[in-house]
């Protein structure tokens, strides 16, 4: 497992960067990008869990010990699809918000508070 630490670290870092973007940028599009990055980071993390040094693709005709863990890969495929859906919806929101508010500045969206 220890050999994967670099993968773990980088994927978590990527997620953190994404979160940081979502926190600091005011533009809705950028926030969406940040969220995407975060998701990608977590997906990378999932992949790296299943990674084995020197492993090959998990196809049935090779011994199982040689293959990487197939489950995370399946999960990530699903997660990516979901991510796409979220991003698409978010972008729709962005478009609509731009129509209504004339801006994408998220700090302007404070009609409702307290």
């Amino acid at each position: 497992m220890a050999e994967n630490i670099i993968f773990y670290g980088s994927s978590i870092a990527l997620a953190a960067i994404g979160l940081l973007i979502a926190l600091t940028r005011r533009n809705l599009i950028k926030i969406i990008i940040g969220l995407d990055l975060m998701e990608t980071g977590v997906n990378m993390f999932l992949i790296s869990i299943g990674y084995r040094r020197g492993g090959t693709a998990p196809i049935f005709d090779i011994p199982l010990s040689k293959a990487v863990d197939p489950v995370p890969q399946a999960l990530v495929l699903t997660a990516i699809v979901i991510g796409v859906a979220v991003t698409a919806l978010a972008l729709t929101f962005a478009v609509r918000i731009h129509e209504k508010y004339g801006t994408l500045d998220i700090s302007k969206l404070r009609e409702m508070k307290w």
Partner: protein
Amino acid sequence: MVSPILAIVIPLAIAFLMPFFSALSRKSVKWVFLAVIAFNFYAAIMTFLRVLSGPILVVTAGIKPPFAINLLIGPLGGLLFLLFEGVAFLYAIFLLKAEIKEPVHRFFMLFLLNVAGATGMILTGDLFNLFVFLEITGISAYGLVGFKRDKKGLEGGVKYLILGSVGSTLFLLGVALLYSQVGTLNMADIAGRIWMLKKPTLYAAFIMFLVGLGVEAELFPMNAWVPDAYEGAHDTVTAILSTVLSKAGLYALIRVVFTVLSPQKAFLDLLLWAGLITLLLAELSALRQKNVKRMIAYSSVGQMGLVVFAFGMGSLFALQAALFQAVNHVLSKGVLFLSLAIMGKKREGLELENLRGIGRELPVTGLLFSIGALSLLGLPFLSGFWSKISLLLSTADLKLWVPLGLVLLASIIEAFYYLRTIGVFYTGTDFRFRETAFIRLLPVLVLVFVILYLGFRPGVLAPYLKGAAKELVDRSGYIGWVIGGLKP
């Protein structure tokens, strides 16, 4: 005999066929929608009845768990299943006459997705599957909140979306953490191998789950989206968010903490205090709130806090009380939001001053709203009283005197603002009687009937609550159902 899996599959399938139905006949959409929800309700009833004799295991792809995704419906799942589908069915009836912004079929599509997702969340026995359903529920809910496409709706939707997706990402991270050590995603399987987990991983996973699911379960401080989204959303959407969605999130959290991760004292204490702080903060925020819908939204948050607090106590009795409180919350909040929706049609804006005298104008709706509110704040012989009293009894059993005092304080605050609202509803005399259509009142009437019925016979619920609470406490039993010899 209906397989519970159909309650997920059919709404999902029909949801994507909605444009097709719409093209066929625009009017047919809402009837198709109603039919699907009615089917779900039917499935829920059948499942609930079957669960009485023993839990149901549904295996997909013909492979035995833990190697394939399975559904497992125990007493807890059966109870929530029935509750969700029942409430959704009532909402569907309510929606028959509601004004919905075009395109209507998309609204119903999202609604179906939402119901399917929430159903999936409570039925599934697989952690990643749970994530998928969480996302389905979430995405459809974001869409529903923003569906009005006015400023408030969009604002609420986008806030919900951003927090929600961060939350579910964190949840996924938690799932990944667990998987990295246990190598399985089946909840029962993980629960059986929880000893394999190193302590740091266990705690880290708990943190991720708490924060990730806390967004849906409306725990402070992840619940900030709630008032905004509730206020911005369509009335019925608010109702389903407050009743079904929040309970689904709560279910996920509780399931993960109690069954999957084993209820450590540290976790429970955290739940307890998080729930308590959520309760107090929400009630305090609601106190000076002028917008009634937002006020009820805060109250909803507070009630969720109360339920989480009760779960955090962790005793069998407390869990029963918590579940009972959750059931009552569903009933009351359904009544409140639906009757508020009816009132909203008669007046402009849901500010408190605008609703002056509405109870005289809509006497039945006003009465129903009042009963819902009174049940929530624990008037005896309404079901809310029994859940609150049993909750307090279990608090006292554990000698948690300080939390007990705080819960009572919160109850007083809650009583104040609800009674103020009711008082305003009945202020003034010169109002004409203009009651709304019966079909819109029917769902509220049914809910109030249940409240009253449970108020006089709370005992009918007791065995189910007990079974559900036992399911949560008895982890090995749950593992045994899935891994052991339970025949699918």
